[in-house]
Each structure stands twice: as structure tokens, then as C-alpha cells.
């Protein structure tokens, strides 16, 4: 009997021997990842990857536009067929870690699951294809959604109204400080200082400075909390506001918040809240009830809109009654049974103006509203409960193996440091890189600045106990290896396609775009 193919069963066996590959604590093994050049280094002249109708015969831009203002095709643009482009981005995606891949415990980033149904809803042509300048009679669906979301967010955060337009948390912060500034200017006493605790995100002092304020840093106590005495000492009639994250970046609830707010309010100042950690208190407590006058939070954190490799975000800002007149435009209002955008400053004469084009990141509004609709009041509260349970579980299991700089209760995130690994010469950076080999994204490292070598872990509520156990297993394995074989630890990561990229070189000799013949050595 002849076998024309030439194949034999023995060919399937392969050679004996070879190293047993180590599988990381979270199951990280290895696979086939392809080296992939830039699009500008691929393709061939004449190729194209799109299908378009023909340009009508006789089309002659030079007949109307001066020749000096026209360009031919752009040299350097790639010429690739569709399959080449599809393979390119497919391969690039395979080098990335996402929430869909595995655990992603970045502190204060709230890397929770991005629901697939939210995606489908955001892409409904009625939303995705709605032009922002449609007459309001043609866009009632969009306007109604924005209005409903604004009402829900206001209720959830405990404020009478919410600014919807900011493109991101940092822009929401900017809006908040602009409103604070306008408030004081309207009172005739502009004030020049803003108080910011040492645990604050970098955006806080940056936003304050952009509004012409000088920042006064306040020391947190040994318990990781801001104390009323500290605030009282710094508070005077030249302080426009205090900026507080609650819970703070140590995951610790600022229990003195009501007293602190009273101290600031008594001298005419306002209390700004950075709501990056809103996930910890959803349905359990409301910032508006704590004394905050204005707070920005993030739909791309708390309300699960996708992180997308760094954006886009959406940063709604809850405002207390005193700041409502200063809200940036537009706002969506309900007139009888229909909805409209208020864009005319004559309707809101004290508005600080407009912070970005059009009305806000509608794509994110649809997704956030879908999540709120699916969770309902009990589900929203459950978010905070499970987020806090998960973080405390991780804390309890890692305690003793990694140093906990603060004994204070923590909510949805916890900060460890590398003090217990110091004597073995192992740093937080080494721990982070080795975690990659175990199959997880590292937590946030070296932030907040008040903790040297900080490891900031926020599991979020969408992670199962098994995932947490695997993560703890990886951390414990690393703690062991730090004692037994620190050199091996320091050579991590070994599994990803690139390891220990030279950031110094990137900063000293910046190469920020492709150029023909580009060589990076």
C-alpha cells in the first residue's frame, strides 16, 4: 500500500530531551509570538487595503486650489494589502496584556472587566452614527441617555448636578478647579493657595498650578490619614480649596473628612474630591454627603468603560449647589417631555465656559449607562462590597510576606513595600518584573510617593477568588525566591518578547517616529 504524502506517524514524535519549561504561578507558559516590523517597513508600491468608489473623471483640485497648497501622495505612507494590515495588528495585539488576558491589579486604576454588551450597545448605529450637530429633534435618544446618566451619577455620588463633558479625569479636575476659582472670583476674593496632601495623584498639583494656584503640601499622619490639626494649621483666608482623594491612594478612608471639610468651609474655602477611588464606596457612602463641594471621577475606572491602551476616558464632575452656576457648558436639560442642550452662555451667565469640543464622550456615556442599568441599586453596592472584600483578602494573605507600611484599615486597594526584601537586594521593580513571568500584570509600583518602593494593589470586584489565590501564590513564590535565589529574580522577566527595555536610551536619544533607514541600537 503506497502512501503518496510522504508522512509517517513517527514524524509527530519530535526529539527527546529539552528543558522542562517552568510554568508561572498564574499559568504563564510560552507560545509563538511573531516579530513584527512597523507598517512603514512593510508593503510594496501600489498596494492598498481599502475599497472605495472611483474618483470621478475630470476631478481637478488644481483648478480651484492654488498649486502651492496641494500635495501629491505622501512619501513614507505604507502601501499594504488588507491581509498584511490585518496580520500586523493581530500580531501586535498578541504582545499586549489586557483585562481580557488576565489579572491587572493596578492601584487606583480600577481595572475591572469591560462588559461586552456595553460594546455592542455603544456601536448601535443610532448612537455611533449620530452627528453631534444633529437638530435636537433628530437626536432625542442621545440627549435622553445623557440626561438619564447625569441624573443617575448625581444620585450615586450625592450631588445635585454633574458636569458630563470632561474628556478624562484630569480634565474633570481642571474643570473642578476652574469652578472653584470662578466661585472665589465672583466673591471678590480670588485666593491663591490650594492644600494638597502628600498622598495625592500628580494631576492634583498640576491642575492647581494650571489655575494659577500655588500648592501647599500637607503631611499625612503615621496612620496614613490626613488629620484635622494639620489642615487647621494650614487653613486661612487665602486658601481657595483643599484637594482630597477619598479613600486616598493608600486605600485608606479619610475618616476625618467631615471635620476637615468643616474646617475648610468655616474659613470660606471649598473641598475638592479626587474620585479616582470611587469604586470603594459605591452605594455605601456618597462623596456629596461627606462635605465635598466638587468631585471628579472616571467612567473608565468605576463604570467599566474600556481603558483602550490609555484612553479615551470620561471624567464627570459632581458639583454642590454653590458651584452649579459655574458649570461648564453644555448641560442637557429636560423641557417637558423633550431634551435639549444648553449651549448659550446667556442661559448660564456664570459658566466658566467650554472645556472641549461638542458635548462629551458619548461612546463612554452609553457604556456607563448600560452598566448602571444592568447593576441596579443592589448591584452598584455589591461592587464596592466585593472590591473591598477582594482587596482585604489579598492584604490578609500577603501580610507578613511583604511589608505593610501602614497598619490602618484599607478598603479597595492596599499598598505594600519592599522592605522585607531589602536585605536580599531585591527591589519592588524586581518583584514587578518577576510577576510578569508568573502571568499577571504587575500592580502599580513606586506610587504613592509617601511609601518608598510602593506596591499598590487594587484587584477590583470582577476578579474571582481563584484569580486572587493565584496572584497571592505568585507573590509568595517571589518572596521565597528573593531569599533563595535573588539573582534569578533580578533577571526577570524572561518570558515576554521584550525584557528590560532601555528607558534611559529612549530619553537621552529620543526616536519618536519612523524615518527611512531608521536604526535603533
Amino acid at each position, binding site marked *: 500500500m503506497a502512501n503518496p504524502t510522504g508522512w509517517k506517524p513517527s514524524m509527530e514524535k519530535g526529539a527527546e530531551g529539552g528543558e522542562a519549561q517552568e510554568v508561572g504561578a498564574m499559568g504563564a507558559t510560552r507560545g509563538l509570538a511573531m516579530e513584527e516590523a512597523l507598517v512603514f517597513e512593510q508593503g510594496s508600491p501600489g498596494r492598498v487595503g481599502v475599497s472605495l468608489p472611483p474618483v470621478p473623471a475630470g476631478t481637478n483640485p488644481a483648478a480651484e486650489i492654488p498649486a502651492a497648497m496641494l500635495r501629491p501622495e505622501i512619501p513614507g505612507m505604507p502601501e499594504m494589502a488588507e491581509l498584511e494590515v490585518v496580520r500586523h495588528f493581530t500580531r501586535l495585539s498578541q504582545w499586549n496584556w489586557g483585562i481580557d488576558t488576565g489579572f491587572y491589579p493596578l492601584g487606583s486604576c480600577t481595572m475591572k472587566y469591560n462588559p461586552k454588551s456595553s460594546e455592542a450597545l455603544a456601536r448601535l448605529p443610532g448612537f455611533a452614527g449620530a452627528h453631534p450637530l444633529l437638530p435636537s429633534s433628530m437626536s432625542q435618544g442621545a440627549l435622553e441617555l445623557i440626561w438619564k446618566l447625569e441624573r443617575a451619577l448625581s444620585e450615586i455620588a450625592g450631588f445635585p448636578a454633574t458636569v458630563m463633558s470632561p474628556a478624562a479625569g484630569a480634565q474633570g479636575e481642571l474643570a473642578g478647579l476652574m469652578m472653584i476659582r470662578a466661585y472665589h472670583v465672583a466673591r471678590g476674593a480670588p485666593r491663591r493657595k490650594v492644600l494638597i496632601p502628600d498622598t495625592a495623584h500628580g494631576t492634583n498639583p498640576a491642575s492647581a498650578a494650571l489655575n494659577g494656584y500655588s500648592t501647599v503640601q500637607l503631611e499625612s499622619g503615621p496612620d496614613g490619614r490626613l488629620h484635622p490639626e494639620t489642615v487647621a494649621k494650614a487653613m486661612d483666608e487665602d486658601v481657595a480649596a483643599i484637594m482630597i482623594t477619598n479613600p486616598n491612594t493608600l486605600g485608606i478612608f479619610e475618616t476625618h473628612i467631615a471635620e476637615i471639610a468643616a474646617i475648610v468651609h468655616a474659613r470660606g474655602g471649598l473641598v475638592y474630591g479626587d474620585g479616582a477611588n470611587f469604586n470603594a464606596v459605591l452605594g455605601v457612602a456618597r462623596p456629596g454627603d461627606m462635605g465635598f463641594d466638587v468631585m471628579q471621577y472616571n467612567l473608565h475606572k468605576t463604570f467599566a468603560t474600556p481603558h483602550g491602551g490609555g484612553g479615551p476616558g470620561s471624567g464627570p464632575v459632581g458639583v454642590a449647589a454653590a458651584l452649579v452656576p459655574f458649570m461648564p457648558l453644555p448641560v442637557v436639560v429636560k423641557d417637558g417631555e423633550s431634551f435639549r442642550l444648553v449651549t448659550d452662555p446667556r442661559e448660564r451667565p456664570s459658566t466658566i465656559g467650554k472645556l472641549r469640543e461638542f458635548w462629551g464622550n458619548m461612546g463612554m456615556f452609553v457604556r456607563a449607562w448600560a452598566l448602571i442599568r444592568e447593576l441596579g441599586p443592589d448591584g452598584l453596592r455589591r461592587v464596592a462590597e466585593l472590591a473591598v472584600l477582594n482587596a482585604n483578602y489579598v492584604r490578609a494573605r500577603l501580610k507578613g510576606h511583604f511589608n505593610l507600611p501602614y497598619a490602618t484599615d484599607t478598603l479597595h486597594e492596599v499598598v505594600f513595600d519592599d522592605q522585607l526584601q531589602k536585605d536580599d537586594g531585591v527591589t519592588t521593580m524586581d518583584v514587578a518584573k518577576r510577576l510578569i513571568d508568573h502571568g499577571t500584570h504587575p500592580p502599580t509600583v*513606586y506610587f504613592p510617593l509617601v511609601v518608598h518602593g510602593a506596591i499598590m494593589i487594587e484587584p477590583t470586584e470582577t476578579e474571582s477568588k481563584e484569580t486572587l489565590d493565584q496572584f497571592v501564590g505568585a507573590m509568595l513564590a517571589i518572596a521565597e525566591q528573593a531569599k533563595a535565589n535573588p539573582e534569578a529574580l533580578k533577571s526577570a522577566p524572561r518570558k515576554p518578547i521584550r525584557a528590560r527595555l532601555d*528607558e*534611559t536610551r*529612549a*530619553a*537621552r536619544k529620543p526616536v519618536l517616529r519612523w524615518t527611512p533607514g531608521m536604526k535603533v541600537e
Partner: protein
Amino acid sequence: MTFPEDLQYTPDHEWTRVQGNRVTVGITDFAQDQLGDVVYVELPDVGDVVKKGEAFGVVESTKAVSDLFAPVSGKVVEVNSPLADAPETVNEDPYEEGWMIVVEATAPKELAELMDAATYRKFVEEEQE
């Protein structure tokens, strides 16, 4: 970690080399070690006036930024401009080629307030604890 005997030091980890009323300024070996790989140095222009204790420039690594504080008051008469293209010099040779500015001191008594090498070494050791 080196602490050259012929230099004076500030609590902000700058060193000074005094020649008459000309004061050369840089950052110490300890400072460059703490900072990591220096990627950029922002220095004042020749002719700028500096005041003791105030920032006269910035030194950057990939992940940190540090202000440079003037150890004495005076006028900047020389600037080490090659540092713009070779910031790594600060790491490789902080006390010689890595010098940053030369100040013509206008208040010489300020020089007496600087630390000598032994005092600075002790200061660094205490900070480390």
C-alpha cells in the same frame, strides 16, 4: 561613594569648588546615584542672577526630576553646555566633567555656611537611616 576633600557641600547634595570669588557647582556622587541615569539637565544662561537656596535649574532622570539649588548668590558666568548633548557625564564624572555652572559670588560670607567633606559624608550616612 566619593566625597572629595577639596570641595564644600550643601544639604541639597550639590558640591562647590571655590577659586577666589568664582564658585563651580555640580551635584555629588550620592545625588547622581540616587537619581539614576541622568537624561536631561536644564541650566540657566550666562548672565542670569541666582540667589542662595533658590532653584537655578533642573536635573532629570527617566523617572524623577530634581531642582538644583544655588549654594551661593551671584551671577552665572559659565555654563557647561555640552551637558545638553551628554547628560550621562553627570553620572560618569560628577565632580569634574559633570560640573554645571560657575557663579561669581556676591556674598562671600555665604561660603562659610557650606559643609566640608567629612560633615557632608556624615550627613549622607544619617539621611540613609
